[in-house]
């Protein structure tokens, strides 16, 4: 379930037709109107995960780097293996 795609907030609207907090989110060059009611702290420039027209969470950029930290550690292990180091 849950096709949630990361996008960048490019605009926060003041007042909308449906009375909900709305904004524009860009996904690699295409923008869609998204409801921002569930990310009240989000600012223009922040990245959010969008599902079915709603931003569900802000992406924590520092945490996003954790995957790559792990990968660098694993890369070091690979090198050790290749060099035959115990």
């Amino acid at each position: 379930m849950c096709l949630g795609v990361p996008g960048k907030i490019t605009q926060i609207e003041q007042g909308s037709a449906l009375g909900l907090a709305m904004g524009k989110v860009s996904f690699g060059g295409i923008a869609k109107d998204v409801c921002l009611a569930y990310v009240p702290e989000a600012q223009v420039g922040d990245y959010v995960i969008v599902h079915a027209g709603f931003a569900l969470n802000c992406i924590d950029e520092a945490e996003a780097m954790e995957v790559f930290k792990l990968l660098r550690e694993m890369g070091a292990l690979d090198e050790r293996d290749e060099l035959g180091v115990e």
Partner: protein
Amino acid sequence: MTMGDSNAPADLLAFTCPIPISDYPTITLAHGGGGRLTQMLIEKMLVPTFANPALEALHDGAVLGLPTTTGEAQTRLAFSTDSFVVSPLFFPGGDIGSLAVHGTVNDLAMCGARPLALSAGFILEEGLAMTDLWRIVQSMGQAAQRVGVPIATGDTKVVDHGKGDGIYINTSGVGIIPANVHISPTRARPGDVVIVSGRIAVHGIAIMSVREGLEFETALESDSAPLADLVSRVLAAGSEGVHVLRDPTRGGVSSALNEIAGQARVGIRLVEASIPIDDAVRGACEILGLDPLYVANEGKCIAIVAREVAEAVLAAFREDPLGQQAAIIGEVVPEHPSKVYMRSRIGGMRVVDMLSGEQLPRIC
């Protein structure tokens, strides 16, 4: 009463329909999607009923040999037809009129033919704005002039309000195939290289963007364009080495390649990372939950060519304004005949299956 009983009145209901009618008592949208159900309709109902070699080849157009006097080489005529039911009628980069002209010109080009003339049949819905019709007709005239192909004949009908989407257009076309050109899906063979002329999925996403209110930071226009000149260039560069040409319209690159793989009984292997796609189009596919391989293109060409001419053909593509992003995206292999596989970005293997019905966006 049986089919062969010529004394009894024909009872159409006694005819055994090979598509299980119990499954599909009515036509559904999926039958028009370009995938399996469309294929079923064609292969199980239309082809066996109309039964003739030109149709059975099932290429983008029929190749007909014109009768000759003894001693002359036979002239081959390409004959193609296409109907256009697109909604909205006007979209960024074109309209149903220019689409209709380009579509049939391209079908002829995919047979290796130089288009000679087109026909245009209009089914107009009562209530269609005259200004809309003017725009469409002018667009068709301009498109035909630019390609140098006359719309030489046509027909017009009007249906009651509510019985059509504003306007439906059918274009048919004829063209002459030069003697040294032999394009056919069955010519694809292991070792051949698969080339696409540019970035995929543009037309389908451009249409969706109007329908679904997607905004592109740089306006996305349909890639609808006539490919006859591009094809001439490619044929000049690759000559006999150009085995198959196909324009991946509805059903996308996947449907086109699956059809060819099936017709030639070869396998095709693609490399995901090599497939050219615009970032914004990819973004749209991501958020709509669509696979770009199944999204329609209207100004792109797939060429399956002998390995020896691949570089020359690629260069020829890239010299043309419509082929600048051309790329080699895969190859023809003897393994898994009739199936298309793809090496994913991370190095795994997946099957690129024939579309079942219409591609429906995923939400979950």
